[in-house]
């Protein structure tokens, strides 16, 4: 079995896509859209110094949306034989013959489609044999376990590497493809101290293997986070300032983006409905997407409709200036596409203070390092989630906290209560924020 990805796969996927589009008219479709993807990956885990898992992933699929008049149907398959593809096309057409017309479902016109595709350097091989990957996974875990004798157990060190291609074509003349890679290392450790048992993790995930953090960092970071959670307490129920670490703050930022995205808006399912040109964040916040950053996690030259992506601002001086729209959601709302089918790409919120300065600034309150459960109601903005982290007094972390909830409302949190954002964001996420300090949230504990 070939263990190295063959970049020729992009040409194969393109030719399959082209063939389906060619056949679609004869199958009864007035128009057609095809997505094809293929990937090859390696995932290994080592636990307690020994190899535990070796997995080769090899995925492929093709998805066909057929239009009959203004009606459409979608079918997909993982079987790329000519017979299976023909049946998939037929299934899509059969569905399009019975669904209701949807005037909002349109394909990008030849004028709208991307013309020149820049190389955004998203595909980088990592020449890694299974043996070398396992050796690295052992190193990752060992770097963590060796930190402290209270680290008594492990869910292992892992290494993964995947390369793939994705091709998109329509009968309006679109035929584009993009190859990309994702490589990563992670570690999950368990610590024990008396009756207290805790787990935590660390990871690094990037497109270019040279951007990876060192295996020692991954293990040591997992060790640091796990040990810090030992012997937690509950804090008292009270309304206090709350500081979200970057990973948790990035989740909040993603929720804001969902709330200004077309799908939530045309379904009237967003607390930010009809809030265009009004302030939704503090005046010092600007949100800009930068889809063309080379080698970045969220980068793409074109969106899910085949329109060219562009650097653009959604929030200026805290005011919502633009929604996040695809062709479809724009049509539903009577607006123009913002070239965001598939979401925003590389959107960062970064401030100037480092984490320690934010803790000092908070003076007293809760640092949230982990959140549990869903608990975000985008319809009305209500927010209530399980949390763990640290209690802060006099600007210093005092002790770990667990089994509490943090609750508020997204609108109030983001517009009125967000005091400061940290400089500490992880640029290898597509939507990333530095730590966020909120003036107040209801913390429920004992």
């Amino acid at each position, binding site marked *: 079995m070939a263990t190295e990805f063959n970049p020729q796969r992009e040409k194969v996927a393109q030719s399959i896509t082209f063939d389906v589009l060619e056949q679609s008219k004869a199958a009864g479709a007035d128009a057609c859209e095809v997505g094809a993807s293929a990937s090859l990956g390696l995932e290994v885990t080592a636990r307690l110094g020994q190899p535990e898992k070796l997995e080769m992933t090899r995925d492929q699929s093709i998805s066909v949306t057929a239009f009959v008049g203004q009606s459409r149907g979608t079918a997909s398959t993982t079987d790329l034989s000519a017979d299976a593809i023909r049946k998939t096309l037929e299934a899509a057409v059969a569905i399009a013959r019975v669904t*209701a017309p949807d005037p909002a479902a349109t394909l990008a016109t030849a004028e709208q489609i991307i013309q020149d595709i820049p190389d955004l350097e998203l595909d980088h091989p990592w020449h890694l044999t299974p043996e070398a990957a396992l050796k690295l996974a052992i190193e990752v875990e060992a770097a963590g376990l060796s930190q402290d004798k209270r680290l008594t157990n492990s869910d292992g060190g892992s290494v993964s590497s995947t390369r793939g291609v994705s091709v998109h074509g329509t009968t309006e003349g679109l035929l584009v493809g993009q190859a990309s890679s994702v490589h990563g290392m992670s570690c999950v450790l368990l610590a024990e101290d008396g009756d207290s048992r805790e787990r935590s993790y660390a990871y690094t995930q990037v497109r270019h293997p040279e951007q990876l953090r060192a295996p020692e960092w991954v293990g040591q970071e997992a060790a640091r986070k796990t040990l810090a959670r030992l012997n937690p307490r509950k804090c008292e129920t009270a309304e206090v300032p709350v500081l979200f670490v970057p990973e948790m703050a990035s989740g909040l930022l993603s929720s804001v983006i969902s709330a200004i995205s077309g799908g939530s808006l045309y379904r009237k399912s967003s607390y930010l409905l009809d809030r265009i040109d009004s302030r939704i964040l503090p005046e010092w916040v600007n949100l800009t997407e930068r889809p063309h950053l080379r080698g970045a996690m969220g980068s793409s030259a074109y969106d899910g409709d085949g329109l060219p992506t562009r650097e653009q601002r959604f929030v200026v001086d805290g005011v919502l200036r633009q929604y996040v729209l695809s062709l479809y959601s724009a049509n539903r709302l009577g607006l123009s596409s913002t070239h965001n089918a598939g979401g925003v790409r590389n959107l960062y919120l970064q401030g100037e203070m480092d984490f320690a300065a934010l803790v000092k600034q908070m003076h007293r309150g809760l640092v949230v390092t982990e959140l549990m*459960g869903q608990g975000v109601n985008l319809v009305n903005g209500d927010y209530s989630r399980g949390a763990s982290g640290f209690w802060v007094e006099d600007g210093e972390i005092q002790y770990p906290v667990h*089994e509490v909830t943090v609750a508020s409302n997204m609108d109030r949190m983001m517009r009125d209560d967000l005091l400061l954002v940290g400089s500490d964001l992880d640029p290898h996420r597509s939507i990333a924020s530095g730590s966020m300090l909120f003036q107040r949230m209801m913390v429920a504990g004992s």
Partner: protein
Amino acid sequence: MSTPLQTISDTLLAPGGLALDDLGTLVGELAVGEVDFADLFFERAEAESFSLEDGEVKEASFHCDAGVGVRACAGDRQGFAYSSEISAQRIREAAQVAVAIQDGRAPRGGINLDRVSTPRLYAAVNPIPERASQAKIAYLLELDAHARARDPRVIQVQASLTISYREVLVAATDGTLAADVRPLVRLSVSVLAEQNGRRERGSAGLGGRYDLARLMTKAHADTLVQEAVDQALINLDAVDCPAGEMPVVLASGWPGVLLHEAVGHGLEGDFNRKGSSFYSGKIGQQVAARGVTVVDDGTIADRRGSLNIDDEGRPSQRNVLIQDGILVGYMQDKLNARLMGVEPTGNGRRQSYAHLPMPRMTNTFMEAGEVPQAEMIRSVKKGIFAVNFGGGQVDITSGQFVFAASEAYLIENGQVTAPVKGATLIGHGPEVMSAISMIGDDLALDSGIGVCGKDGQSLPVGVGQPSLKVDRLTVGGTA
């Protein structure tokens, strides 16, 4: 009528030039060196869905996926690869990757496969072609009209009909040769209601392993519409939920997601074999209040979480996990059972051929007690009555878990009063299970909507419980 094995052999093996008789040789080729167990998992899945929005069904899809997963185990090591093309050549290529988890290459020869006789807990039918697409669309349209007619405050109705069909076949070096045909249907409704500029959502769903004739009834549509609309309207009047520790009365049925999180995951064999669960090494110890008996049962007819055989070819079972407050058993797949020196319990499940099996839950519930729900409510001075929930999550090492109420009420001086906004509830598994002071006489299983996620794999599951009074839970409100 042909058996599932014959049917699946025709649909899955024959197109790639394979027959049941070839499987002993192929799986035998994996038995090399230190490999002490290996299996081949063949699967074909079809899924169809229809979505209603704005009073019309404008979106529908059909998905087809087939392939074979090839796994070799040596002690606690697993090598795995898969192919979406089913042929001897592809299986041999995947096998080379799988056996590379250990160094030995010396073959031990073919395997004699014994056909596992499978129970019939659900009909071996494919519900997708059972009805014409037009009939499925018409059913959703009727449901929509019904929901809108129910209350003028309903401004949005979304509904979906999801129909899936799965054929699986397992051949393993322990001699297992087994097959299963699994229908699964689900109907979901979500409505948005508006009043004085405030918008709230309500949702409901039901389903199981049965055909469309049973799913697509007027009674089902009526029930779901009523539940979803009522929930949205109740939430329009909801006041801020209190925050802090207080007594909580949980309704029967879906609130059993409590058990799934507080108990279930922590009793999965892999975590206990590795010693990473809060429940590790606690067999025979008291982990819940007296009177609490928790069961995982994959053998209930037609249920969403039920299985004739698990994904390792082992017939599913009724497994008692906690008996009268005492921990008595874990849920096991073959690998973890072998390593712990116990019998597998029929809980080896995988999302698809492209995923490794793990110990997973089926239908997890608590046995009934004797207390009427009204008595529990009367006993609470100030607390919460939680009727419906969204999902939950657990940290199996610390035992900390959450679940989120989507419909709940205040209890004041023994009376249910105002509805409160949705809130997350948090607690520690064994502590909450020990704080159960009343167990209801009204055991109910959920309506068939559960999805469980673990290690990136999603599976259909069931939950259930009688009404319960928990003396102390932390409620994540804002008031």
